[in-house]
């Protein structure tokens, strides 16, 4: 065999990455062995089917990926901080912006949001778990191993380097001969299947498992946003599946889908990619809208203004999200009529989005506002996201886009929507729901410090890019000469990026600090919340609710507190629970082996792995494990203990 293919050469940076990966792995193995934690890890986490634990694992993985994507971002900002920098060469700059984009969107923002959905959705609808707990574990492990597959590309064989959009013909074997884009097609495929299964799971959970009395129009706004997001997932992800499969066939088996000869059509890729890609950005934005709606209502002590119009605007956004994809390539040769159509649909999205912004403002109006950390992120989101939205409408005008297309203006625009839209939202949600999961709050003073660093540095990092774009700096350029005059603004942007780093360091330090010093919270409702997740104990018992709640109003928990409407009326009875299983994890491992073998065209291991996958599926089908029961006495004892009473 030819081992040269696996090696990546030349850069001290890459050797550094290899060594740090090796050291971290060895460290983890030694640590687990020394503290005798292998059994714990396997029993409590790797085999779990509990939605809360799966959610926590999603969020941990997402934080890890935020770190990786953040390091990528810093490397890019450093490389462009001054003219003619020699930090990264062109090839590495290409790899770094490609993996940065992929990781941030697919392996950071989306899993973070899916993690929050995992933790919160069953609680907010008063259910004991998701509809299919085992499938949920399968989803997680497919996502996780897909993400790992992409991550090892940096040190084994080389990363994808044709941009996160991997346009053909650039991404074809002819112009990208390394295995990088093979990794792209397989890693995204594996984690994409996981995401699709999540979509199915949550649609069923939300539509079929709500507590008695919770009509659709009584669902919390986060649940509405999660429902619509999962509908988008179910219809958008199959398009990605097909696109990636065709890419794989082109690269590995010589088919002619996106080639320049023999009838291939490169623009077909661009269309397929964005038919998935634009809905994808709404997959990360809509749940963010839901999170903000919950936080604004809680910390203004008011019910959400314009509930119905909020729901309908999200429905309209979801529909429109499938009708705008061509705005990503106005300049790539379609006619004026087509551009006109997509221009109009794109601008139309601003209308329902505006409705939502005004509803939030009206909810705040005359509210009794408390400025907690999650609320600060929410309040910062509104104006910053509006800048992103307004520049989006500028980009939507096809004729003007000939000026902005592929410049730093675009890069600034999408970071102005993605960072306040998705990243601020998941951080806010993280702070907001943290006490529910772990039973204590994050420190607010440190939280606010981190917030100000992040919010201000964000603008320092990205506002200059609008100006640079208008000055003519194109995106994905690894260096420029001093005569262009791009230097000062890029240096400023680098300063901002350093500030962002400091903010994130404080955020992580806060987790450490709070774990050590924050007092336990005993009543399960630290923020005086409105929705059902606050009606159970923190940390949440395995069965979520000792008694299934009965819902009569929209903010069910709030009205139960204010108007004394009882939520829990029945007696405690035994509770059915699904049992743990290691098969989803094993399946993930085999998928990883399959993906890796395919990347390097190692056909025999690939076939063996494929057979292995089918065998694991078969054993799952033959499983006759119907779970177990927690007895009523045990539930009562747990409840007492969580409330701090002695048993």
């Amino acid at each position, binding site marked *: 065999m030819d081992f040269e293919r696996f090696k990546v050469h030349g850069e001290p940076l890459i050797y550094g990455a290899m060594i740090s990966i090796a050291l971290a792995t060895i460290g983890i193995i030694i640590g687990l062995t020394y503290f005798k934690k292998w059994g714990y890890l396997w029993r409590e986490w790797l085999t779990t089917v509990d939605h809360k634990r799966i959610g926590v694992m999603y969020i941990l993985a997402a934080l890890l990926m935020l770190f990786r994507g953040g390091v990528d971002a810093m490397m890019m900002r450093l490389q462009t901080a001054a003219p003619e920098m020699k930090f990264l060469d062109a090839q590495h700059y290409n790899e770094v912006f490609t993996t940065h984009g992929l990781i941030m969107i697919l392996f950071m923002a989306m899993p973070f949001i899916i993690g929050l959905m995992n933790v919160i959705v069953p609680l907010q609808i008063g259910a004991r778990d998701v509809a299919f707990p085992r499938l949920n574990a399968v989803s997680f492990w497919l996502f996780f191993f897909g993400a790992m597959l992409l991550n090892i590309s940096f040190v084994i064989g080389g990363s994808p380097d044709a941009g996160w959009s991997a346009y053909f013909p650039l991404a074809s074997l002819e112009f990208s001969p390394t295995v990088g884009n093979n990794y792209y097609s397989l890693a995204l495929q594996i984690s994409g299947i996981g995401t699709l299964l999540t979509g199915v799971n949550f649609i069923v959970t939300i539509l079929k*498992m709500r507590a008695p009395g919770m009509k659709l129009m009584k669902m919390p706004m986060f649940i509405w946003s999660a429902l619509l997001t999962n509908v988008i997932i179910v219809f958008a992800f199959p398009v990605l599946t097909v696109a990636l499969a065709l890419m794989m066939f082109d690269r590995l088996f010589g088919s002619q*889908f996106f080639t320049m000869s023999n009838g291939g059509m490169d623009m077909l890729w661009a269309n397929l990619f964005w038919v998935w890609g634009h809905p994808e950005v709404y997959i990360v934005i809509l749940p963010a809208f839901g999170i903000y709606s919950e936080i604004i209502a809680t910390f203004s002590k008011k019910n959400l203004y314009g509930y119905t119009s909020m729901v309908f605007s999200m429905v309209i956004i979801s529909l429109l999200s499938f009708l705008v994809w061509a705005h990503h390539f106005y300049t790539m040769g379609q006619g004026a009529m087509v551009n006109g159509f997509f221009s109009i649909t794109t601008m139309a999205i601003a209308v329902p989005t505006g409705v939502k912004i005004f509803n939030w403002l009206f909810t705040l109006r005359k509210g009794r506002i408390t400025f907690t950390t999650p609320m600060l992120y929410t309040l910062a989101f509104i104006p910053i996201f509006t800048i992103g939205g307004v520049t989006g409408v500028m980009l939507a005008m096809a004729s003007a886009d000939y000026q902005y297309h592929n410049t730093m203006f675009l890069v600034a625009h999408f970071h102005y929507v993605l960072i306040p839209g998705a990243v601020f939202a998941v951080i806010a949600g993280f702070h907001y729901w943290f006490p529910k999961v772990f039973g204590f709050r994050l420190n607010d003073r440190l939280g606010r410090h981190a917030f100000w660093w992040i919010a201000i540095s964000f603008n320092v990092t990205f506002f200059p890019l609008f100006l640079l774009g208008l000055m003519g700096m194109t995106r994905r350029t690894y260096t420029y000469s001093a005569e262009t005059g791009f230097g000062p603004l890029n240096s400023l942007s680098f300063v901002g990026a350093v500030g962002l780093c400091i903010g994130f360091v404080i955020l992580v330090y806060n987790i450490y600090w709070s774990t050590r010093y924050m007092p336990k919270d005993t009543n399960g409702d630290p923020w005086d919340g409105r929705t059902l997740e606050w009606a159970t104990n923190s940390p949440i018992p395995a069965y979520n609710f000792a008694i299934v709640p009965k819902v009569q109003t929209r903010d069910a928990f709030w009205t139960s507190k204010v108007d004394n409407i009882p939520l829990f009326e029945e007696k405690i009875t035994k509770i059915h629970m699904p049992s743990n299983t290691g098969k989803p994890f094993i399946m993930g491992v085999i998928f990883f082996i399959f993906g890796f073998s395919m990347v390097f065209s190692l056909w025999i291991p690939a076939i063996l792995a494929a057979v292995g996958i*089918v065998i694991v599926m078969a054993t799952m089908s033959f499983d006759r494990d119907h779970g177990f029961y927690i007895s009523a006495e045990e539930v009562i004892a747990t409840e007492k203990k969580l409330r701090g009473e002695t048993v």
Partner: protein
Amino acid sequence: MKIDASKPLEYSTEENSNKIFGFWVFLGAEIALFATLFTVYLVMVNRFASGPSGPEIFEIGPVLYETFLLLSSSFTIGLAVHAMRHGYKKAMMVFIGITLLMGLAFAGIEVMEFLTYIHEGATLQTSGFLSSLFVLLGTHGAHVSFGLLWGGAILIQLWRQGINPATANKTFIFSLYWHFLDIVWIFIFSFVYLKGLM
């Protein structure tokens, strides 16, 4: 596990009815998948470059056999569910068996068809049109083949456990899958073969 006797066996527990609903949602995703593949095919259909075009390679004979087999198997899987509702385990297993045999024959003919194309020099690598043809037909064929394994696993479970809420549920879901593949085939028959032969 609470069993609701007023409902058909396959719907009788909450888990069961969730699974059926979940499978319908999954079929929504499958529709999106095949819709994308059909779109790709229709975009590519005239881009045969220097290779053969559809009318030059399609033969109606095997395609009619395939259609006949798959449509009939959709009928027999319906009969299997019917037998299941009446609790006739043996009849149910026989009908599933017939369904799978017809599916196997279908897959066999499709493999022969592919080999014929390749023999005539019409391969995946030849042209955009042929790439899209092979991938569209191949995806459907892979679904059928996967169905053979799945149906086989269900047969074994039926044989061991008899008809109970779990096996009834699996059989019913499998029948939905099989009907769905039949419908996809009708689209393939119309938009690929008939359109290509006209």
